[in-house]
């Protein structure tokens, strides 16, 4: 089971890396924001896997916090774009 968890965490790291590539050369701000969203959820997944791997229940709370803050980033992004646009 441990090998599977490590392998899955590595898979999520790969997914996170691909998201970073999109951040690097996404043409618009919206594309970059989407990639940030992906990085956030991949981070949540990695934290959940590490919670089992390292036997650290506190990491569940960290994942919950990360999930809650993900909504704020998109809202802040759109609000900032709108005020910038006007």
């Amino acid at each position, binding site marked *: 089971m441990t090998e599977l968890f490590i392998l899955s965490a590595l898979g999520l790291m790969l*997914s996170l890396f691909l998201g970073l590539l999109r951040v690097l050369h996404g043409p618009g701000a919206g594309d970059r924001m989407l990639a940030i969203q992906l990085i956030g959820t991949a981070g949540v997944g990695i934290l959940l896997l590490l919670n089992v791997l390292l036997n650290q229940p506190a990491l569940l709370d960290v994942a919950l916090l990360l999930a809650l803050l993900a909504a704020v980033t998109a809202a802040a*992004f*759109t609000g900032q774009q709108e005020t910038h646009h006007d």
Partner: protein
Amino acid sequence: MINTLSSILILAGVFFYLAGSIGLLRLPDLYSRLHALTKADNLGLGLLMAGLALHSQDLFVMLKLLLIWLAVLAASATSAHLIARQARRQETGS
């Protein structure tokens, strides 16, 4: 039996994550990327959590995982709508 099931669920979740990020890289425009991303967000994380909940076999942990999943669902739905509307507005120039 439970271990096998949870392994399958976790691997399926990771598969959806990878498919979503490859879609994010390869698809041509923002709206189709949005489509790819929501698969990774909702289904990938959901399957991963189902696998982990089966593995933990602890009601408290399961409820917390469910809470995290609901938070991610709400966050991804909201932000997908906001980003799509923003892009649409900039396209039509209003």
